[in-house]
């Protein structure tokens, strides 16, 4: 019994990987989990409350715009915005900045709109089921933070 734990080594085992090289992979996985969990939350709400009275179908717009914002934010690389990429693209650095600005505006807008839907559409009118509003809010929050993780969690130094 004595000496069970003697064989344990920290750090120098075969399985110790270089985490700085894995950073982009981990960020991609985290972003994927966040993004698709958000969509499955809203699918759950849509399945549980299919009628338009308890969950108005127009509230799905919010998540769609958040998804478009996700795609817009991540379609432009940081190098393109800073201007240190090899090619200018068709609109150059300014175009990339404007594109990114619109993308972030859509992202923040959908997040704020989801809070508005939660309170203005469900909490304040005293609806019987508040869960769809919470689902809309969490969907947009998950997609928003997934986009942030996918944009800023990865480093482009690993692409060189």
């Amino acid at each position, binding site marked *: 019994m004595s000496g069970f734990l003697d064989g344990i080594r920290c750090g120098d085992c075969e399985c110790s990987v270089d985490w700085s090289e894995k950073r*982009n992979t981990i960020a*991609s996985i985290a972003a994927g*989990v966040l*993004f*698709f969990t958000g969509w499955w939350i809203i699918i759950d709400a849509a399945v549980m409350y299919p009628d338009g009275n308890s969950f108005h179908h127009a509230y799905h717009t919010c998540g769609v715009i958040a998804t478009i914002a996700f795609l817009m934010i991540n379609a432009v690389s940081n190098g393109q915005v800073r201007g240190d990429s090899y090619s200018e693209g068709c609109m150059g650095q300014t175009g990339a900045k404007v594109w990114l600005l619109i993308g972030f505006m859509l992202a923040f807008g959908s997040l704020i709109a989801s809070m508005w839907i939660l309170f203005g559409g469900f909490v304040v009118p005293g609806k019987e089921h508040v869960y769809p509003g919470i689902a809309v809010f969490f969907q947009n929050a998950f997609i928003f933070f997934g986009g942030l993780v996918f944009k800023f969690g990865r480093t482009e130094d690993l*692409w060189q």
Partner: protein
Amino acid sequence: MAGIKALISLSFGGAIGLMFLMLGCALPVYNEYWPLFLLFFYILCPIPYCISRRVVDDTDSASNACKELAIFLTTGIVVSAFGLPIIFARASVIQWGACALVLTGNVVIFATILGFFVVFGSNDDFSWQQW
């Protein structure tokens, strides 16, 4: 020989996972075959990574945008494979016990697929002992 052993143990894992999936469907208590749609997710799951590995030819860089997008999409397919039976159970299409069995099968099968890529994905073209 090591390749053969790994292949046999991986196929055993896949069979165990599919057994859990079929148990969730076919036990007389449950007897609902909706979770079989998860087979699509199992088939789709390795496709993005395979495409990105074929598209990206230079292996000098540690990572690149195409590979990260592929990992993102693969994660999405895996999350969907876990989300679908939970939605089924919440909508009372299947029972929660069947959902638990299917989720167990999910874990086993995705671990098997991951193991396949860990074991066979790393050998480059210059290794003289192909399996």
